[in-house]
């Protein structure tokens, strides 16, 4: 187990290193930020002075090493758009809003998808199964940004039950969280259903039935406990796509999180903030995947010896 964990950790570090190179390279291919920072009639001396100040006159590999060293300490420099704030500070300011929204979306996904997937598998072929599969199909086909707009149209404008956009209490989070969760619910439901179908067909579940275990015990204790490993492995992807979903949905709802920040930063060519956001998202995603892999290996010994 330790060997597997170490191997997985080293692999992630290699990925992380490559991501820092990509992030650094992309931001530097975008053209100089100086154009947006100085007025059009700036003199050559002014431009040179600012270049020196920002370290943009150094060779590229030196700039990368400096970037890497600072990045390891969470220092991505000062934001160009939000003057006087560090890039990391700007991201950390917005992160709680994204985590709250993403957390709620994740919670909704699991709370809806697991029971729906289990029921759909246990009652295979009944109207409940068809209903669940129909909904899952819709969830996978609907564009999140459009779902958000339609939800605003129905529940905020039409019925007036919930606010249209902005930041506030739980009421402000419900519509955006549902918009993010729709796709995840669909994916997780389908996974849970197919995993359950497979397990329900095994000998040990049949044996449990023959022994006279109650239906609830058979479904949840014997079948689901073993089927749960499949949705579990999907959890890393799930956490990542919730983050990605938040970029789009935060923009629709004007939710002041890190996703919306990313779009604002890119429009303003705010390199340091772009770097900080991308690194943060990539790191979160990698971490989620490593944790899932370790958990998976711990639960299922075949993985770590395979």
């Amino acid at each position, binding site marked *: 187990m330790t060997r597997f964990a170490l191997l997985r950790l080293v*692999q*992630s570090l*290699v*990925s*992380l290193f*490559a*991501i820092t190179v*990509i992030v650094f390279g*992309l*931001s530097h*291919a*975008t053209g100089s930020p100086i154009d947006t920072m100085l007025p059009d009639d700036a003199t050559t001396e002014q431009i040179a002075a600012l270049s020196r100040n920002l370290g943009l006159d150094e060779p590229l590999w030196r700039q990368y090493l400096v970037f890497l060293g600072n990045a390891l300490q969470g220092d991505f420099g000062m934001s160009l758009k939000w003057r006087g704030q560090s890039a990391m500070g700007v991201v950390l300011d917005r992160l709680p809003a994204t985590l709250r929204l993403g957390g709620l979306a994740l919670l909704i996904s699991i709370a809806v998808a697991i029971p729906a997937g289990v029921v759909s598998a246990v009652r295979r*072929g009944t109207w409940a199964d068809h209903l669940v599969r129909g909904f899952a*199909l*819709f969830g*996978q*086909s*609907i*564009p*999140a*940004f*459009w779902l958000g*707009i*339609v939800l*605003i*149209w129905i529940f905020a*404008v039409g019925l007036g039950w919930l606010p*249209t956009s902005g930041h506030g209490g739980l009421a402000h989070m419900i519509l955006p969280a549902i918009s993010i969760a729709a796709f995840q619910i669909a*994916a997780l439901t*389908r*996974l849970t259903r*197919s995993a359950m179908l497979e397990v329900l067909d095994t000998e040990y579940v049949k044996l449990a039935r023959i022994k006279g275990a109650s239906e609830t015990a058979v479904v949840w204790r014997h079948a689901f406990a073993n089927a749960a490993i499949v949705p579990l492995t*999907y959890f890393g*992807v799930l956490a*990542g796509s919730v*983050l*990605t979903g938040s*970029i*789009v949905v935060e*923009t*629709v709802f004007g939710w002041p999180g890190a996703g919306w920040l*990313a*779009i604002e930063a*890119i429009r303003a*060519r705010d390199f340091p903030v*772009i770097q900080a*956001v*991308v690194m943060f*998202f*990539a790191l979160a*995603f*990698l971490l989620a*995947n490593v944790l899932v892999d370790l958990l998976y290996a711990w639960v299922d010994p075949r993985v770590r010896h395979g």
Partner: protein
Amino acid sequence: MASSRLPVIPLALLVLVLLGPALLADLIAPHDPYQSHLRNRLQPPVFAGGGWEFILGTDRLGRCILSRILHGARYAVAISAVGIVLGAALGSALGLLAGYARGWTDAVVMRLVDISFALPSVLLALALAVVFGPSFSAVLAVIVFVLWASFARQVRGEVLSLRERDFVARARVAGASHLRILSRHILPNVANTITVMATLQLGVIILLEATLSFLGIGVPRPTPTWGLLVADGRQFVVSAWWISFFPGLAILLSVLSINLLGDWLRDRLDPRLQQV
């Protein structure tokens, strides 16, 4: 549960919403999609009090929504088709190579797969849009980047077990070159998987393309892509809901029919393929 009958309704839907308009937009669109009719701004659709001239209503410049949706189908089809072909080809080739060669090649390809999976696609698209400006090729690059890794991983996994099978060993004993073994003996055995994955991913790609143009980082204005059409109506949720509603519905129906076809194809060709 696999039904062998051709899924008629999804096919009809696909032709009606996506393929038909993409091929025939010039012939069937009632208006020029770029033409403003300033006297007919924000006309509601015909069943909500509007006239027959603009069946699905008009936007804030008086452009015909129906015509714009019909023309938008073109871009949806063109971008996703080219993207899928490129992404599937690149991913499958690398997957074949990694699974067949194993060792270092495999390790490098799989690390690249990990890296691809770790970079959120929308963020990458944002970065690319800033680098190259919003463009057709930047969108294609993002699509290929998103696709190749899942194809590579799936194909590699299957090749790893295929290469140990007897028919591969026999081909080798018979003196077949590596290239021949790969192309004549292994590739045909993963072709079904690649086809099914491509169909299942088509819906994902149409959604991604729409998302990018919605955010203003896809194919640039004034091209009437479906995502852009939805974005155009965002400020009019209260006064003119139809501007956003119908283009979004077109996306939903297209992706829905593609996903139904994909599921059917999987049941037919590759029932063991686990896909989300």
